[in-house]
């Protein structure tokens, strides 16, 4: 049933590693390899699995932060003319809720799965550039810190430890409050303060993190597949990772340019978006959405990939129409660049452009629908086992469908004129984001966490997580369709009574608390899984893809011997298929070359913190801010230079020495 690759046991192996001594790098420093200190080990790691786990942990933290922001928003809106929080605070909260959820929660959650799974699914030992991988992680941390820096200042202000006076008088606000898509000209310095600068610099840094990670995955997937893992044998999740990485590389430059222009407008007084100087605010919207719409697919395609892995496993059937699912993913990615102006139907595009974007938006519904048909087709004739991952994946299909339908409603531009910027839109994209993406991610967590930590879920808490999140999200967001159609605009910190919005708002608020409780239970369940005594075993779900062929958690080298793959669902074929489709093994008796750990990615990316904060504070006229920025740049450059000249290093492991 299983091959040798899965049951290699090597009692001497641990001692092997502990006997290894760190070497000196090319610049004469001791490499932080084989450290007994947990902090040093994790801070300098280049292991894609550890990096994936750190992405996941940070992202879950920011999911909580963003969720908390949403709860305050919903509490404020529970009753009309509420004055729980000020207008300014509300505006900060919805801005940071959107920014946090998109850039600091969902993207890194996806990155966590990419990191952990892609090398395992293609039978590789790590990503192509392990140190760049670490750099991406720490740059993400730096960016997250810069974006959220305003909250720290706000907290200090609340305790009377900081104020915008004296040298910091130019900072008339701390936290961004212009909406997560920051439409010019409200981002101009006559309308918003230092918060906007933190947001600009934070997103730039996050962009660096995303782009470097994406190149890494593209190179990994193209070049590091184990023998026999042809492109059309890649697991769908890996395919989606590849497509998403390409999307990031093509989409992020647009927002990078837009953010740079905005920064120049604010810091150096240029006129890209400032009307007084002849700039065009509408330019921002085009640049932003050329990034922003592909970004939607950057968020959702990994979710589709997860579901395309979970459904076949628990239906015990291959994915229906593999090629078409992959192809439609690519078509979605491609068309995603051609529909950006459907976010701008009310900006006066003119008849022709409106018509073109309307039709293209309808067109993108086709490949999306194809995926749903194929998921249903996958289930048809299967033996559906209702384990936790499957429950969430089935929920994903249903909820995503509902989000998709309101998407089709938006595609009709005249109808959208009533829906745009109303709560109808909020309902639509939260069905996609929570009902779609988040449920898929939860499904992925239930599916792969046993693989990641080697322990199995215990208890039946997952059923309650499922009930509460699904019921909660429907109670929260279904009434919002009606709120929007009854005329409630989004991003309003309060509303008058008498417009028929009171009941809906109260129901939404109650729903949001149910949803929040569901997410809390999920965290409890995750913690229980970490404390579980039940070993997961290599293959707890009777799964189909390569990552289940190795141990749980996988050893640092992933596979003791690189597998040779002879079928699409490689591990399934190995278990149940004919002899000629079973896996083989590459002879690696010469040992496995492992990359050395390094401080340099951490140092280089932490240069972004003074760089980002310095640039932000410079606009507000804070003294020495410019020098801080230069210091950050120096750290960054120095880190990268030392990284280059310290040499790759590396050491060899011999996991199979005993058995040979």
């Amino acid at each position, binding site marked *: 049933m299983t091959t040798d690759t899965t049951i290699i046991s090597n009692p001497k192996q641990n001692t092997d590693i502990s006997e290894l001594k760190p070497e000196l790098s090319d610049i004469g420093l001791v490499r932080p390899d084989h450290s007994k200190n947990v902090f040093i080990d994790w801070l300098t790691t280049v292991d894609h699995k550890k990096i994936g786990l750190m992405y996941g942990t940070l992202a879950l933290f920011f999911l909580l932060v963003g969720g908390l922001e949403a709860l305050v928003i919903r509490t404020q809106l529970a009753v009309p003319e509420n004055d729980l929080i*000020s*207008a*300014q605070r509300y505006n900060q909260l919805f801005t940071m809720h959107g920014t946090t959820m998109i850039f600091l929660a969902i993207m890194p959650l996806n990155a966590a799965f990419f990191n952990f799974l892609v090398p395992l699914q293609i039978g590789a030992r790590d990503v192509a550039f392990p140190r760049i991988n670490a750099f991406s992680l720490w740059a993400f941390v730096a960016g997250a810190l810069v974006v959220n820096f305003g909250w720290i200042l706000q907290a200090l202000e609340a305790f009377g430890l900081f104020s915008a006076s004296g040298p910091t008088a130019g900072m008339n606000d701390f936290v961004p409050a212009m*909406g997560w898509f920051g439409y010019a000209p*409200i981002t101009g310095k006559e309308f918003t303060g230092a918060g906007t600068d933190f947001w600009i610099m934070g997103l730039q840094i996050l962009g660096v993190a995303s782009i470097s990670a994406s190149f890494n995955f593209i190179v990994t997937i193209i070049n590091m597949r184990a023998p026999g893992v042809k492109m059309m044998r890649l697991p769908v999740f890996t395919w989606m990772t590849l497509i998403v990485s390409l999307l990031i590389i093509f989409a992020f430059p647009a927002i990078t340019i837009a953010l740079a222009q905005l920064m120049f407008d604010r810091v150096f007084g240029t006129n890209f978006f400032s*009307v007084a100087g002849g700039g065009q605010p*509408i330019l921002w919207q085009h640049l932003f959405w050329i990034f922003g719409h592909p970004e939607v697919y950057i968020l959702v395609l990994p979710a589709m990939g997860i579901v395309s892995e979970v459904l076949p496993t628990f*239906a*015990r*059937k291959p994915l*229906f*129409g*593999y090629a078409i699912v992959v192809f439609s993913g690519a078509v979605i990615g491609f068309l995603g660049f051609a529909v950006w102006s459907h976010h701008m139907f009310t*900006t*006066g595009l003119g*008849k022709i452009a*409106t*018509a073109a974007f*309307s*039709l293209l938006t*309808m067109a993108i519904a*086709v490949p999306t*629908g194809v995926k749903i*048909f*194929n998921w*249903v*087709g996958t289930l*048809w004739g*299967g*033996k*559906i086992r*209702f384990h936790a991952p499957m*429950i969430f994946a089935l929920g994903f*299909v249903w909820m995503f*469908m509902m989000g998709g339908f309101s998407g*089709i*409603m938006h*595609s*009709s*531009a*005249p*109808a959208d*004129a*009533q829906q745009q*910027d109303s709560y109808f839109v909020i309902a639509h994209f939260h069905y996609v984001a929570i009902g779609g993406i988040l449920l898929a991610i939860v499904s992925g967590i239930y599916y792969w966490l046993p693989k990641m930590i080697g322990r199995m879920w215990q208890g039946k808490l997952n*059923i309650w997580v499922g009930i509460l999140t699904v*019921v909660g999200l*429907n109670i929260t967001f279904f*009434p919002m369709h*009606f709120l929007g*159609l009854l*005329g409630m605009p989004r*991003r*309003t*910190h309060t509303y*008058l009574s008498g*417009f*028929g919005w009171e009941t*809906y708002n109260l*129901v939404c608020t109650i729903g949001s608390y149910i949803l929040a409780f569901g997410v809390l239970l999920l965290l409890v369940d995750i913690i229980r899984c970490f404390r579980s005594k039940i070993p997961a075993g290599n293959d707890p779900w009777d799964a189909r893809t390569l990552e289940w062929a190795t141990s749980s958690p996988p050893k640092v080298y992933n596979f003791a011997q690189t597998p040779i793959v002879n079928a699409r669902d490689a591990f399934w074929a190995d278990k149940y298929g004919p002899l000629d489709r079973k896996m083989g093994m590459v002879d690696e008796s010469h040992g496995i070359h492992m990359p050395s750990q390094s401080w340099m990615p951490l140092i280089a990316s932490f240069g972004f913190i003074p760089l980002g904060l310095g640039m932000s504070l410079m606009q507000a006229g804070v003294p020495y801010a410019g020098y801080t920025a230069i210091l950050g740049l120096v750290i960054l450059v120095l880190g990268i230079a030392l990284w280059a000249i310290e040499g790759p290093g590396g050491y060899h492991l011999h996991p199979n020495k005993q058995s040979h």
Partner: protein
Amino acid sequence: MKKLKALRIWLMSILGLIPLIFISGCNLNTRMSTFVTKGPVAETQLDLFMLTVWVTGFIFLAVGGVYVYVVIRFRDKKGDENIIPTQGHGNPLIELSLIGISILLLVIIAVPTLQGIWYTHDVPDDESSLLGSWYSHGDISDAAKEEPFIIRAIGYRWWWEFEYPQLGITTANEFVIPAGRPIHIELRSVDVIHSFWLPKIAGKVDLIPGRANSMWIQAGDSKEAWIEKNNFSGSDSETQLAYLKYLEDEIYDYYYGQCAEYCGDSHARMLFRAHVVSDDRFYSWIDRMKTGHTKAPDDMNWDNWYQAYDQSPETLTGDINEGLKLFMGRAKCATCHVVKGNPRAVGVAGPNLTYLAERHSIAAGWLNHRNEDNTVDKKAQLANFIQWIKHTDDVKPGNLMWKAKGGGIGELQPLLNDEEIRKISLYLQSLQ
């Protein structure tokens, strides 16, 4: 049994939606409902929306139905643990036909969408849409006769200005339009992006600084469209009567609108109103707005009043005179506000206050004093004026009337006291 339990969870979740649908079923006729349309633009938009609802509803039932069936039918039954289902990889014929059906269903939406885009984009290009074809009151230029009726909506943080360039009047936050007449709205912004949304009459279009956007609205059907729609046949006078009855019953009303694009601190408090009236009432409103307040308080003419104000202000007594003196003097209101007729109240930075007391709300629709019968609740109005002047920054955080680089009433030393605020409010209430 575990499996059945899981199934039950999903059924429960789906059942949980049903009460929500019931809640939603009730009362779609609210102030800003897009379901109750009062004009051809909103009607086209609603028709398209309902079309998408039917088409997606059909897909939902079809796909969702199959989905639920599949999940129940192909669940793993007891004793099946070791049965491995057929490892089918797909069926191109099924795939292609499903893609074909999807495209077909989208075409059903696409064709009317294109028609809708063209129709809702601008005032219909025909004779009856020109101002000259219906405007039968006073002088308008020959050029204006060949244009549609134009209103210029200008967005400020956080209030609205409405100019009628062909008629030479300006008002703020509440504007008046005749029923059944197409109107070309020019959308302009002086600061950030706003969005003009009058849900019962038309979906929104943005006001973008540095960009000349426009849209068209029409409250109620034109007579010709109404006749056609209702297949009405009768003599001219019968038709006229029936049409007027339709306007009377369904169209003449007070409509609620709001800014729909986030524009800063008080975005939530940037509302506006449209008062849809008959041609005759519209003409008389225009006349009043054109002439403005020809008399100063106590029926004095303005020259005499200002002579007194300049030379012996103490002779001007009474709350209203005192209020106007503050308005012109210490409170500096006239620096930013126009009150048509008053020769020295000519500031243009703030809302035009001509006949302010006849409006049903102040502070861009946030503070309301409208009775059900469309009269003004005088008591509430006074309270609103007082609240607005006293707590400007709470009612509308961040606004320029409170703080404007030394020009705001929040920067007065000392602040206006309660007595002064009451007098100014009484003066404002006399603007009717």
